[in-house]
């Protein structure tokens, strides 16, 4: 079955990507908060196999970069000394998967430091920040989207299937929720949180709040679908045969909402990951020096960075496969849903 193969492919892709992020400590060469003040905005280093004298090296190497005299962000390559890349070497301590203390890193250099994606304003390794940042951001995205969708589904389904005053009330409530000044609410929440709460925990709390608050939109969409699904012939028929509310809902109406829901999920997860940028603008995001994708992207919002340091774009590009993975997963799930529907119609299941 083609649909299933596509689905498996997306699942495997996402699994691998999340695996890399999950094992960030091993794949990242350095501690993401470690500053190297001698190398701010250092461009990415390139792997070489042939050195300046034309000699071939079996082991790939890089050239160290040094800040040019009297400059703030211009570097010169030290081409006299090739720095061979070492694999599985000991380095900064980290906890694998959050609990296994470990020191092995996939790669590193012996004498100087290696920056494959360059460094940021403090000379921190962008690659390490990208990998570790993914842990925070993906968790926040999944958490937020999960909360939003489950609340949205419940309320939307109730409103759509019961109709009448309940529908009316819930939809007015949804509209009210969409119109509310959420910025103010978030300010207020932050103000009431004691400063002693670790900023990271405060951030997750705020993501939870945003997740709860965001129900209105999926609820409206779900309601729309439920409303029309209720009037489909096969639902009417099932009702005519004496199907209970619960059965109808589970068997016929819920599957109809899946396409809207999954599309919403595929969009919401990236949105929540990105929402953090707006949050950091208000002082509610993931605090420095903890890395997150929102942090990485928000440096793109500065004109000077945008035109001066092209490698700051790279993390954004690296995030595309993740979002694409979610979108792809959503659309193939949806196709499967469609195929399932056709099959069920044909086989009369």
């Amino acid at each position, binding site marked *: 079955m083609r649909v299933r193969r596509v689905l498996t492919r997306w699942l495997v892709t996402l699994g691998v990507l999340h695996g890399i992020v999950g094992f960030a400590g091993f794949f990242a060469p350095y501690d993401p908060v470690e*500053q190297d003040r001698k190398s701010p905005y250092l461009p990415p280093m390139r792997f070489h196999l042939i050195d300046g004298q034309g000699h071939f090296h079996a082991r790939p190497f890089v050239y160290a970069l040094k800040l040019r005299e009297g400059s703030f962000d211009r570097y010169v390559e030290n081409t006299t000394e090739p720095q061979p890349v070492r694999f599985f070497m000991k380095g900064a301590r980290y906890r694998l998967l959050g609990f296994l203390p470990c020191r092995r890193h996939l790669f590193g250099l012996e004498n100087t430091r290696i920056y494959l994606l360059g460094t940021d304003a403090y000379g921190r390794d962008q690659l390490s920040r990208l990998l570790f940042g993914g842990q925070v951001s993906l968790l926040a995205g999944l958490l937020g989207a999960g909360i939003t969708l489950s609340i949205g589904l419940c309320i939307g389904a109730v409103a759509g299937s019961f109709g009448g005053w309940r529908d009316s009330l819930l939809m007015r409530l949804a509209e009210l929720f969409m119109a509310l000044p959420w910025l103010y609410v978030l300010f207020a929440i*932050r103000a009431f949180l004691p400063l002693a709460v670790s900023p990271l925990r405060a951030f997750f709390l705020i993501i939870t709040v945003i997740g709860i608050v965001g129900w209105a939109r999926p609820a409206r969409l779900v309601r729309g679908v439920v409303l029309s699904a209720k009037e489909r012939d096969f639902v009417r028929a099932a009702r005519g045969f004496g199907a209970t509310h619960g059965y109808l809902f589970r068997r016929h109406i819920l599957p109809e909402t899946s396409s809207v829901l999954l599309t919403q999920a595929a969009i919401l997860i990236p949105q929540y990951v990105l929402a953090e940028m707006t949050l950091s603008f208000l002082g509610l995001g993931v*605090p420095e020096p903890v890395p997150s994708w929102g942090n990485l992207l928000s440096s793109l919002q500065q*004109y000077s*960075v945008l*035109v001066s340091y092209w490698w700051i774009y790279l993390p954004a590009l690296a995030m595309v496969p993740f979002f694409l993975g979610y979108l792809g997963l959503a659309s193939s799930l949806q196709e499967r849903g469609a195929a399932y529907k056709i099959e069920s119609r044909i086989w009369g299941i």
Partner: protein
Amino acid sequence: MKRVTANLKCCWICPTVLLSLFVFVGPPAIAFPQEKITKEELLVLPGEVGRPGGRLVVSLRGEPKTLNPLIAADARSREVIGVMQADLVHINRARQQTEPALAKSWKISPDGLSYTIVLRQGLKFSDGQPLDADDVLFTFRVYLDENVHAPQRDLLIVSGKPITVRKADAHTVVFQLAKTYGVGERLFDGLAILPRHLLEKPYQEGKLGQSGSLATAADQWAGLGPFRLKEYVAGQRLVLERNPYYWKSDAQGNRLPYVDELVFLFVPNADAQVLKFQSGETDMISQLGAENFSVLSRQQRGYTMTDAGPGLEYNFLFFNLNDAGEKTSPEMQRKQKWFREVKFRQAVSAAVDREAIVRLVYQGRGAALWGLVAPGNRRWGNEKLPHPAWSFERARALLKEAGFSWSNGPNGESTLLDSDGKPVEFSILTSSSNADRAKMAALMQDDLKQLGMRVQVVPLESRSLLDRVTQSRDYDACIMGIASYDADPNSDISVWLSSGGLHLWNPSQAHPATPWEAEIDRLIEEQMSARTFEQRKKLYDRAQEILAENQPMIFLASPNILAGAKNSIGNFRPAVLEPYVLWNVEQLYLKNGTENATR
């Protein structure tokens, strides 16, 4: 005070004493038919002579709120009002010293209590109405009226008593102070002289706050500044036109200002301001960050960037030294025990890598700071202030002396413990809208980690931050920046005095909490009424030393003032005082007017 500014290029200073004698003693009959005095006493500015005409376009980070100096509270409104109004005595932003403005001359009585100010004759407001002593009297009556709530009022209250103003004749006004005032004639800088003929009626009706809104018709508003209102388009721009009655001329006798129109475009985003300048749509740019400055410097096309050197902004860290009495939580009590320890504060100061801050935050366009007086202030800094180098060893030694110790964790990281064996952990507040200070906080966090302190940086949106620092006073430490509006110590008075609102670590105290704060209070109060610069400087130097010893504020760095202008702009000389590029707006001119931005 006899120290009248040494501006000898103009000829009106020498006869000051003579003239005022004449005014007091001479027969009043001379002054009678006012209209006879048609000769305008223009102020002649030395320097490059420009050519008239053209339009100057600058961007403003957002909209001004009002044109009325009596209610203007935000920087943008003040910037616009600055080019529409004039004061009696003005501080030259480049030389940081006073010079005559609407006042042709002034005299301070030997006891330092009365200031006699002689107005220029024949001056007119921008709507053609004449200016005389009654306007000045009216202005100060309004400023001092409690019901008007003018922000200027508090400047005019010297040691609890408001200044009194008396008219001596049609062009002479006498100000009487209750106590000698070290600031002297600087007092009058920025106090716009208001048009009585327009504002008297609203004042009587109690509606002064409503006049001068941006929607005011152009002929209903007037001032003595180089430009007057022409057109306001909500959310987009404010267009000012040349004031044909302005009271300055250049060396060849041409009346200033040179340009016909001054346009403020409202551009709410700093990067958008940079882009607008780069595309040639605006003629000048100021208040630039170092990053944007270097982007603009790299691709200079038709414009020149200027680094005017360190300004008057000082950035600093302070700890919460408030005494909330019994309400203090046990945790806060424990933390304040560290914060109150001078050696703890000194250790933090020693561990801060100021060189890295200047390099990484300001790209080298700034200066490391060890005291409140920023290097841009040429006269008042204490050169003998110690500049201890960045040293973790000294920091550790200080902490050890204060009873702190270290424990080694399983992962090899060391943790600082206080005398009760509790780990040293605190948070630093920073404003989320200020990227520079957030960067400083991140660097400091890393520095303090080397000492074993676990520091969390908490960015808060600015109102929430102010609320915590000044109202609820529930915080550990905070990074802030203050830009003095003038080089005189008086502009930082509320930072120094323990009763001041900007005495941030413990603001608005009824009585000084520590002996050294009491000593600073005494020194500052004394310098306020000292009569000579040398006396004031000596007292002020001592206050700076006490501050440096006790480190209630750990000073970090001071950014340079960065600006740029098109090559076609003449007389462009950015100053380190506000308004950085518009302070000599009347002298700015377009070298070849036709090539100017028209879009």
